[in-house]
């Protein structure tokens, strides 16, 4: 007879000395690992719960302004520097790592309407209520020197916004019309206008750098081509857009922050339907900024909250609010896609984490592996009702919560009327308009 018994040599399974690692032989046979799906489900549930437990996004606030913060600007080369302009004409430069103000400039009399940095990072421009455009050096004045702008341009009308070209020495201001300026000249290279109303903001496209977008008071968004010095096309919405922001990864996508509590993501090539309508705010949306990954954006609203939206979803993934934070006027996403800065009415700039439960700092390889595994688990089971409920759960201040309930009732009432109209009229006489197209009035080329 031929016989062999299974016999293991303990030397192959037990470590030799206390200083060695323990040996862990692996066998990935699924029969040795029963209940894969329920165990993964429980791990996903735990991961979701822990994500909520560790969700502490608020990092700190930058204190110092003496009036509401009106605009923010990022330094293109330094992650730790941020510039802010306040409603009393003061411009401050902050160091985010030390959370201190490193320089203060009394730039304008009246509001600082816009601030933008030059692409090389050596200077920045500000526009204010005193009808001037000023260019300042990024490094502070030397010993004994006074704080003086490099260059001052006096204009005839109030400028309401400024943006610098991403590659050339050109900047654009907006006010009564959109002006394109060369840095060396004191009068605009060209002025473009379409319509007779004031323009509130202007933004250059970071990828197709000759394109500009602007928002005007007569509820339209106009796109301009700098090379031909003409407006290209415009889209007229229901209500006024406050700002737009171009997607840094997709050349033709931009998001508009509108007064009717929504944000609209448009594809420039087809302006008749927005790609996505983002509905979650309960008051006018004042500012929007994209993450450098191009997959998410952050919006600041007049209801005292900041929301983070994924580009392809219509609901926000995260809402940040504090009792002390009042109407949020401006928001920026830092260039390493990790932090969000928002400037609000009550003179503070707050720094938040973009992923609320992320652990900052250098992670060990085991931490990274565990984090990736948990992320994948949460993705896999995100649609299960318990896990969805925990992941979506967030605390909202009473004002926002009650507003949401009220607006839901109003929306329901409107929708019910529409459905009844549709049901009780001759088929074909009442056309069904999708939610996306409802808010667009016209597109003009």
């Amino acid at each position, binding site marked *: 007879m031929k*016989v062999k018994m299974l016999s*293991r040599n303990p030397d192959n399974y037990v470590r030799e000395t206390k200083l060695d690692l323990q040996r862990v032989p692996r066998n990935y046979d699924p029969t040795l*690992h029963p209940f894969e799906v329920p165990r993964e489900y429980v791990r996903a549930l735990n991961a979701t719960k822990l994500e909520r437990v560790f969700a502490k996004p608020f990092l700190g606030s930058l204190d110092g302004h003496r009036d509401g913060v009106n605009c923010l600007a990022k330094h293109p080369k330094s992650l730790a520097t941020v510039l802010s302009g306040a409603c009393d004409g003061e411009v401050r430069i902050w160091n985010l790592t030390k959370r201190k103000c490193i320089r203060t400039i009394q730039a304008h009399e009246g509001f600082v309407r816009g601030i933008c940095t030059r692409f090389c990072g050596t200077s920045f421009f500000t526009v204010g209520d005193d009808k001037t455009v000023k260019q300042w050096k990024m490094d502070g004045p030397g010993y004994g020197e006074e704080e003086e702008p490099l260059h001052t341009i006096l204009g005839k009308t109030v400028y309401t916004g400024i943006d610098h070209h991403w590659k050339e020495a050109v900047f654009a201001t907006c006010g009564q019309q959109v002006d394109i300026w060369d840095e060396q000249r004191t009068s605009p290279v060209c002025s473009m206008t379409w319509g007779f109303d004031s323009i509130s903001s202007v933004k250059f496209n970071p990828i197709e750098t000759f394109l500009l977008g602007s928002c005007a008071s007569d509820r339209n968004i106009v796109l301009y081509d700098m090379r031909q010095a003409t407006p290209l096309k415009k889209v007229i919405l229901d209500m006024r857009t406050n700002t737009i922001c171009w997607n840094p990864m997709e050349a033709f996508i931009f998001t508009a922050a509108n007064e009717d509590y929504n944000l609209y993501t448009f594809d420039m090539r087809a302006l008749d339907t927005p790609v996505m309508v983002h509905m979650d705010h309960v008051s006018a949306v004042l500012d929007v900024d994209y993450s450098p990954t191009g997959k998410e954006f952050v919006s600041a609203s007049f209801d005292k909250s900041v929301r983070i939206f994924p580009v392809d979803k219509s609901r926000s993934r995260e809402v940040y609010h504090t009792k002390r934070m009042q109407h949020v006027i401006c928001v920026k996403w830092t260039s390493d896609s990790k932090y969000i800065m928002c400037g609000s009415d009550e003179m503070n700039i707050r720094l938040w984490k973009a992923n609320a439960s992320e652990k900052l700092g250098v992670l060990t390889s085991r931490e990274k592996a565990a984090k990736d595994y948990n992320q994948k688990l949460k993705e896999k089971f995100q649609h299960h009702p318990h896990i969805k409920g925990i992941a979506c759960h967030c605390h909202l201040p009473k004002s926002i919560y009650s507003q949401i309930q009220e607006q839901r009732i109003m929306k329901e009432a409107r*929708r019910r009327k529409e459905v009844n109209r549709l049901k009780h009229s001759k088929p074909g006489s009442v056309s069904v308009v999708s939610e996306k197209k409802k808010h667009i009035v016209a597109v003009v080329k």
Partner: protein
Amino acid sequence: MSRPRRTDFRPKNANIAKKSRISRKRQLPKKPRERRNLEPQRSVSGAQDPFPGPAPVPVEVARKFRRIDKSKKLPHSKSKTRSRLEVAEAEEEEISIKAARSELLLAEEPGFLEGEDGEDTAKIRQADIVEAVDIASAAKHFDLNLRQFGPYRLNYSPTGRHLAFGGRRGHVATLDWVTKRLMCEINVMEAVRDIRFLHSEALLAVAQNRWLHIYDNQGIELHCIRRCDRVTRLEFLPFHFLLATASETGFLTYLDVSVGKIMAALNARAGRLDVMTKNPYNAVIHLGHSNGTVSLWSPAMKEPLAKILCHRGGVRAVAVDSTGTYMATSGLDHQLKIFDLRGTFQPLGARTLPQGAGHLAFSQRGLLAAGMGDVVNIWAGQGKASPPSLEQPYLTHRLSGHVHGLHFCPFEDVLGVGHNGGITSMLVPGAAEPNFDGLESNPYRSQKQRQEWEVKALLEKVPAELICLDPRALAEVDVISLEQEKKERIERLGYDPEAKAPFQPKPKQKGRSSTASLVKRKRKVMDEEHRDKVRQSLEQQPQKQEKKAKPLRARPSALDRFVR
């Protein structure tokens, strides 16, 4: 290994006018990958690779790691969903091949016993096997003569390192049977009906005459659970931390040992519960009843999940194999049957035994052991995946007393038998899984590793509500809820947002956009859709007719009116 470089045949200094780039296309080989394989790989020394190409992967091994059931036909879906599914399937294919390759790293081989020249392996005695194997394995065979404290029931811990046994007259002991080191030995002064290790060797559950007791492995009584009274059988579900108890009062009680709560107390409504086993694949409890049925229970439902009629008389023993595919039952009608659990619930094989088997046990590799009186028979199948063939037993052994308990040791080729005269440990080559996974149950784990494992196991304890016949049910799409949601959405909005928009012909130039041609184009599309619909309905009609034609095959009888 780089491909041989193309030499430039044009002399470098010649004054040749540069032709336009468009015409001078570089001649690239059309299928570079295939070419690389056909050319023999030459290294600097001139040696050739004797095994060109990637290593071959055994197909059956790769199939073991696949979880997507390709035979299921998917309903029609949008192109985005379809492309995502294709990507997922391709990934799974790749990963199953990688996992199949990793099987090379498994160190141990399973044991075997083969007779020479047509020798019947059933005739080989344990003493012969002990002589023929090495010392370490021979030491695994031992007999404990304990006639004083009654017939014994035994249980191995989940790692297979520790053994607990309890005699009918109250003798309870736990020991590390490999090193023969006794951990505790007590007399509980009451009849012991069943004994089970809980999730590790630290805790022990003993079903005593009156109530259920929980002991430490040092013999210290930790709990006395009075709600579980007159328990006859115990089963522990390791991933749910549930202790299932079957009692004489007819109740099946689930006790969560991590929290200490009774999760469910189900009335089986079948009188005294004597026969119980667990299905390790889906944690469903199988109860055998005196009317020949086996019922399947889950703590989430008050009614059994299924009832299978197995025998003509009462069922005396039930066992389910580790993959949950086969169930072996034996009854008072002296039959031993094997049923297919994952699919048809039909008997796959049957055998008449001279004496009914009172105890059944499956090993990790699918060997079936039956205890009939004082004889133990073991049957083996072709491989791990096939049911044991009941024609010829693989091994037999006669003991010094009637069998009262059978349990295969988890990662060793050993069968523990508890009988009237004590405990016997039998050698069964090929019974156990040779390669354990260190993160699941590791017989060589240290104290620290055990503590870490326990914490992790408690964190991923599966809630009892998730026990059902298909453990992968959570990963399936809940089609009913989805359809319900869709209906509700259509009702709410007043129209179907996903319905295909009616065809709008695009305006064309050069006079092709006149009203007549637009109407013609619309009609063409409408006719095509109409034709598709008619074709579909025609396909569905013969199916309906087939369904109706089936029951009218046999000769018409008076009982036809009762056929639904």
